[in-house]
């Protein structure tokens, strides 16, 4: 089974319901898209993330009503350095879509989704703990896994695997 190349052209992908809905709402909020290995990725501008998620959650066509996962990837030393990754699931349509927000290292801040899905709470705390991304509007943004007085964010790429000795 050979891998098909990834499609990144917005024109070719706009038939996908989630992307079509977002483009119809606010074309400037979508900064890119990718269809690779049967998975859809949509890049969202950071200032529109919460509204885009609210739209996908409540829309009658898309119904991405379940937030599966929030995580982050550190592309150090490239800029923008961080990609915060959201996996949404539609329980009725059995479909997934991945949303991504790119953040630069100078201000790794993005709006929290806890007002839409209270379940984002722990996921965002984990990302804050391990990557140092701040989520505005989060009710309790404290470290989740590491001790309260820990220094640094262990999953960043400039943090050594064996830790600081």
């Amino acid at each position, binding site marked *: 089974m050979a*891998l098909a190349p990834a499609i990144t052209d917005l024109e070719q992908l706009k038939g996908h319901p989630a992307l079509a809905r977002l483009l119809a709402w606010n074309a400037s909020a979508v900064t890119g898209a990718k269809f690779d*290995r049967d998975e859809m990725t949509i890049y969202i501008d950071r200032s529109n993330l919460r509204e885009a998620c609210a739209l996908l959650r409540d829309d009658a066509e898309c119904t991405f009503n379940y937030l*599966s996962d929030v*995580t982050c990837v550190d592309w150090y030393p490239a800029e923008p350095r961080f990609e915060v990754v959201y996996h949404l699931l539609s329980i009725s349509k059995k479909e997934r879509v991945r949303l991504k927000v790119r953040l630069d290292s100078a201000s790794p801040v993005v709006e929290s989704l806890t007002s839409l*899905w209270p*379940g984002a709470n722990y996921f965002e705390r984990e990302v804050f703990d391990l990557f140092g991304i701040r989520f505005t509007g989060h009710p309790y943004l404290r470290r989740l*896994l590491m001790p309260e007085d820990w220094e640094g964010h262990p999953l960043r790429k400039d943090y050594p695997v064996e830790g600081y000795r």
Partner: protein
Amino acid sequence: MILNMGPQHPSTHGVLRVLLEIDGETIVRIMPDIGFLHTGIEKTCEAKFYQQVVPLTDRIDYLCPMTNNLAYVLAVEKLLGLEIPPKAQWMRVLMNELTRINSHLVWLGTHAMDIGALTVFLYCFREREEILNMFEMISGQRMMTSYFRIGGLALEPPLGFFERVREFAGRFPDKVDEYENLLTGNPIWMMRTKGVAQLSAEDAIALGASGPTLRGSGVDIDLRRDMPYSGYENFKFKVPVAQECDVFARYMCRVRELRESNEIVKQALDGMPEGPIKADAPGIVLPDREKMKTQMEALIYHFKIITEGFAVPAGEVYQAVESPRGEMGYYIVSDGTAKPYRVHMRAACLANLQTLPKMCEGRLIADVVAAIGSIDIVLGEIDR
């Protein structure tokens, strides 16, 4: 008053610490505190070759090692675009369902023991022992099996393995009857579980609950049926859903799942295809021992895979499987080298644990124990 429960408390199933703000016997606020078992597995994965990550995935959730193995190898196979032979797929389904039975038995035994029914624990562990012996037979390990490999399985199932599984699957339904005779109609059990720790379907979805915790609230979703992987579309099984949204509903879902898993095990045994257990991908799958002794290429491939791994085309995938606890997802990012750039595990328990405040606030302290048991947490998976 603030009451501290755990991390060394037998009913918190590991090292969960819960802070309870109480007014008399009633809970005003409940705050889970986690992280005591954090080992940095996600960071460790970034320093390993792809094939070296498989044993790490066992350690995440020590009650369902095969499910984690499966989610990881499926994700890497998706990145590579590998086709898996049918026998390997069916073996994976078979082992996964045995793992589900194993995990549910531990849950049932400890959950009942928390609430005060000690006998069930002994009965459940009797059957679990048999499953662990089968795991040992097939992989050499009772708990940390690491039986699946990228591209297939580690070993051919040994002689007599299928007969042993068939014998177990034949008598297991009677054993489930035995557990149910002790619990389902038991008035004490019903009083402790019915109407306790309510969680509405809307709350369950909003909080990201999955698995029996979600299905116990009447949401009908099971990834094995709805987004099939590893050949699950070839199996016929029912997805138990209960509408009552309480501890008893989640109990009934899991007990019915025990029976359904047993049916899948029987179907897998009956339809087990013949053929190879590894994909035909010389640079990725380790060659057979015999070939290494006679063919130079096999020896070279073996040396190269062990010493420098294999490159995985750049890209990213999210592969979720239905673990005994819910949606276990692996998000893997590859940058085209032999080591994963990022491995993230979406732990079902982490999201399920968030439902605890909704279940417990305004209720009695004794119900906290029932609620924690009913979401079936494994702290290794939560803390990673």
